[in-house]
């Protein structure tokens, strides 16, 4: 018998029950939980301090001011850390595969992706998200942006599309580890690397890196292209103006590729052991 389709409400309930169980379990190590959340918050401040340190030696980086780079940093950070809280747990798939626990995910009446996302849900990672929101807020306050409805929409769109793009990169990248289970760390260069690179204006990089970040791992659509529109700046790549509004298209395309990779990965999966 096929299980009947669940409603959104039921999915939400399931999510809260499963993720909630994980949060309660983590809360047993209270000192560690609190310390971890605070460290995550502080970590990202040092991360941002790095950019401030660089600006102590230059007034503009590739033509961008500190507030403008902070805006890029905030956009990229918010999108990345939402994905980090809700999706990054899928990274642990290689641990499941190696220990043979992945089989038990497959026999349960829920998609393995859903189980992975709830099983290792870590609320403590939200500390980083708070920091990114703060930087974005301060950057917006410091910048003299003339807000129009379209500008607000582009910012909102960038965050939503950015979250989808980073989640897709995570899932698509992790799916590759079904073929090479030890190669997990390669995924980091696209996820953490994508986030790191998009904190800076694209003009910092050589042409081949800019093309990579636009056409292969479309992280530039998370912060750089939307920011060009919001801040009213010229593009160094010389792409048409419409690219600034293409974040949702990039998000959709990456989600489709990720979905395809993930199901191909699951099909390819063969259990370990004898």
């Amino acid at each position, binding site marked *: 018998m096929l299980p009947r389709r669940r409603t959104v409400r039921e999915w939400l309930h399931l999510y809260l029950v499963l993720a909630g169980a994980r949060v309660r379990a983590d809360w047993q*190590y209270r*000192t*560690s*939980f609190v*310390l*971890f959340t605070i*460290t*995550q918050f*502080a*970590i990202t401040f*040092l991360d941002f*301090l*790095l950019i401030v*340190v*660089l600006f*102590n*030696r*230059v*007034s*503009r*980086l*590739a033509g961008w001011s500190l507030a403008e780079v902070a805006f890029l940093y905030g956009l990229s950070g918010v999108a990345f850390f939402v994905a980090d809280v809700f999706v990054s747990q899928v990274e642990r798939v290689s641990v499941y595969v190696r220990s043979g626990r992945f089989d038990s995910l497959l026999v349960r009446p829920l998609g393995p992706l859903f189980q992975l996302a709830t099983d290792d849900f870590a609320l403590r990672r939200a500390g980083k998200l708070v920091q990114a929101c703060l930087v974005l807020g301060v950057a917006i306050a410091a910048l003299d942006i003339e807000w129009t409805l379209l500008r607000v929409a582009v910012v909102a769109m960038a965050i939503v599309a950015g979250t989808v793009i980073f989640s897709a990169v995570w899932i698509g990248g992790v799916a590759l580890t079904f073929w*090479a*289970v*030890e*190669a*997990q*760390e*390669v995924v*980091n*260069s696209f996820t953490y*690397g994508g986030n*790191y*690179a998009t904190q*800076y204006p694209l*003009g*910092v*990089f*050589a042409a081949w*890196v800019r093309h990579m970040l636009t056409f292969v791992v479309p992280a530039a659509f998370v912060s750089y292209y939307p920011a060009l529109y919001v801040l009213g700046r010229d593009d160094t790549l010389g792409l048409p103006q419409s690219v600034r509004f293409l974040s949702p298209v990039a998000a959709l395309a990456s989600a489709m590729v990720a979905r395809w990779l993930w199901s191909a990965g699951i099909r390819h999966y063969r259990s370990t052991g004898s």
Partner: protein
Amino acid sequence: MRLWWEVARRSFRRHSTYRAATYAGVFTNTVFGFIKAYVLIAVFASRGGAPVDGMDVTDAVTFAWMGQAFYVMVMLTYLDLAELIRNGDVVAELYRPRDLQAWWLAADVGRLGYQVLVRSAVPTVVGAVFFHLRFPSSPGVWIAFAVSFVMAQLVCFAHRFIVSLTTFWLLDYRATQQAAAVVVAFFSGMLVPVTLFPDWLQAVARFTPYPSMMQTPVEVLLGRHAGWADSAAALGSQLLWVVVLFAAGRIVLAAATRKVVVQGG
């Protein structure tokens, strides 16, 4: 001595079996090397090429790629020992008739022997192919760098050892390990050379053991401590931290074994 040699040798072999994981790590190290190098190049380009405190763009890019070469050594901020403390198996470790710190040092040296060999070589070569890097021509500088590198490894180990021991009190090591990783990454010069810090922050950094992990050896390599007196001062500061951190590790270990209740008893 024989014992430590065997421990190191087996640790080397154990880690050399994870080939694919090592290649994956090399790949990622290299990708980050490119990003860091381009950011630093942009910084110097935005200054019109003006050096900062004697550091020019070639020095900075060399710094970025050396950071990737040092990555495995510097950025691992805990030992497997931490997991043994968390799950209680450390009790067997404490029973064994040998020095705990020396045992883990030997294992650490074995691990790094392999990882530094592979994971440092590739980013360095890729960096040298794609960018203009600066390497010393005088053999004296290479010798000073080799000594400085070994001391950096010892400082990193002694620091890892202390971070791992905090598990005795916190019963979990992820938070401390994360916190340590951030502080290390920032103050060791891993992310941005300490030379580019504002003066006051540089002064703060120089009072901590962290520059000894990477900033100092790379400065030695770049010939920023040329001459006997300067080299001796740089290596001397590292040696000081080796002594202080090893002693601190032993004190913490003694305190832990005296007061601690092993989990699971």
